[in-house]
């Protein structure tokens, strides 16, 4: 360590004190800022103080700082991403109860002082036996699958076109694909209500053109749900496809053409296989979130549009049956684990290049 080290160490100790004091002040809501921002802000400042303190403590104990740097993201994600799944699993085995919180405790003290662990697979059995849940899972997979295929069919030519465009145009087009993604997802779904309604834009245009006499019924149908999913997730399909297509070596296409392959054959034997990682990544990025989609079926679908995200939502918010909602989530998790692993495998293979 150089001569500057003691100064740096002292300022660090000062920083711990200052940040801790600030956290306390924020917590007590004495600072003249918006009152309800105090609690989360104090969390932020306290986290910073803890970080500095951990560095200090680590130095004192002789623990490498490397581990402290690793520990911060690791602990945060562990507590707020991994542990919730453990809690979810445990509550899926509980029984609903009229209490706060509305599920049975993990164990009970028997009258003779013995411990009784309360856990049963009843909720899962219930899901298996009730046709509603089975149909909801199957129709979620169907809706997500069909939407993914349509997103691929629409997204591929767009991605290809962008990737083949000369430079200034390419950036602009790419920006145009990303732009809707930055505006509100909810409002983009809402926009389709105005389009698909009985007296909506599409029906107005078609009847003005004289194509239809009766307005088409599009809202509250599965068709509207497909449109909504394809529309909102299209950028997620286009971007990974673009990323693989833009790396495509032109000379390969030229070589295929020189050897007498027609554009169609070239596309099927060269372009398509080489863009396979993009196809897999894009499809998974559409398929996985679409399985659990809630907002789109709730706003655009009809009462008979069964999707598992919606069933979970109703189970939780309307029936207030937390254990069954947890069981629904656990089964959904099992359903998406395979596609998630596939996505991860593709990305890991891409990464080292």
């Amino acid at each position, binding site marked *: 360590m150089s001569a500057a080290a003691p100064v740096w160490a002292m300022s660090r100790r000062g920083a711990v004190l200052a940040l801790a004091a600030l956290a306390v002040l924020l917590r007590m809501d004495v600072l003249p800022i918006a009152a*309800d921002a105090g*609690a989360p802000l104090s969390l932020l400042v306290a986290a910073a103080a803890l970080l500095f303190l951990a560095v200090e403590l680590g130095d004192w104990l002789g623990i490498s700082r*490397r581990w402290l740097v*690793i520990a911060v993201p690791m602990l945060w994600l562990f507590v707020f991403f991994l542990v919730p799944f453990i809690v979810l699993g445990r509550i899926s085995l509980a029984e609903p109860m009229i209490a706060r919180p509305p599920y049975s405790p993990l164990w009970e003290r028997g009258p003779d002082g013995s411990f009784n662990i309360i856990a049963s697979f009843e909720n899962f059995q219930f899901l298996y036996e009730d046709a509603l849940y089975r149909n909801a899972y199957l129709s979620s997979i169907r809706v997500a699958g069909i939407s993914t295929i349509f997103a691929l069919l629409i997204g591929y030519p767009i991605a290809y076109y962008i990737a083949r465009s000369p430079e200034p145009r390419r950036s602009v087009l790419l920006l145009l694909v990303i732009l809707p993604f*930055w505006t509100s997802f909810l409002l983009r779904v*809402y926009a389709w209500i*105005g*389009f698909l309604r009985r007296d909506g834009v599409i029906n107005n245009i078609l009847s003005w053109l004289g194509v239809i006499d009766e307005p088409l019924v599009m809202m509250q149908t599965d068709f509207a749900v497909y449109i909504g999913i394809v529309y909102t997730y299209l950028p997620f399909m286009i971007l990974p496809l673009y990323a693989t297509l833009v790396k495509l070596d032109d000379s390969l296409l030229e070589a295929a053409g020189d050897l007498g392959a027609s554009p169609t054959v070239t596309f099927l034997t060269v372009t398509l296989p080489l863009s396979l990682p993009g196809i897999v990544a894009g499809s998974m990025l559409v398929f996985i979130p679409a399985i659990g989609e809630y907002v789109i079926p709730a706003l655009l679908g009809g009462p008979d549009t069964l999707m598992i995200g919606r069933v979970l939502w109703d189970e939780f918010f309307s029936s207030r049956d937390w254990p069954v909602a947890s069981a629904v989530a656990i089964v*959904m998790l099992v359903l998406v684990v395979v596609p998630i692993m596939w*996505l991860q495998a593709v990305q890991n293979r891409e990464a080292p290049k």
Partner: protein
Amino acid sequence: MKRRGLFLPIVATLGFVFLYAPIISLVVFSFNESRLVTVWGGFSTRWYGELLNDGQMLSAAWISLKVGMISATLATAIGTLAAFVLTRFSRFRGKLLLTGMVTAPLVMPEVITGLSLLLLFVAMETTLGWPSGRGLTTVVIAHATFCAAYVTVIAQSRLRDMDESLEEAARDLGAGPVRVFFDITLPVIAPALISGWLLAFTLSLDDLVIASFVSGPGASTLPMVIFSKVRLGVSPDVNALATIIIVIVAIAVTIAGLLLRRQSKKNP
């Protein structure tokens, strides 16, 4: 490709029409005099006026802004550290676990994330006494967690592309690892962190499902208020709000695009 067919341009054009037509109609009908969202009744800005007098909407917007800023900042800190650890540290125990934990939130269905986090908060409250009730703090934690994954991806790709010899040079000149990080690494990846922060902020502003699960009384975010309104049918003041958001985003993205272009011209 020797023969340039018309197929691709036509399909691409139709694709962009598909992407933009609903957004454009949203904007057009926000200036409609009529309450019927799809029948033109003359130009008017009355819905903007009504929006500005909607107290519930305004306070929800304020809550969403606060949540967005705090959780984006937290997410950027966590995400940067995660990306740094994953790209710069060679093998360590738990690296695979960390990789999984930063990728999985990207695709995890929102209902699962929301429900499991809520259950965690409830379980923590009953066993540890914290957090007491649900509100701004729990929404911030939830948003910071899933946004951190996005920041990690962006920061990671920048860290991978970055010339590591700069860091080595600083180390050879006697700088400690902390100093190298703050003096060399951080300034170099700063643009990526800014776009990561912006992305996290937008994602937080946009989230309905997770917020609905982990929020409490008095902490309804803007999407929650919009959703309860939209569920009852179309309302023109939502169009007005959408137009304001679209204009802000368009300006911000254009500026960012111009800045990026200037930067890439400077150092190609």
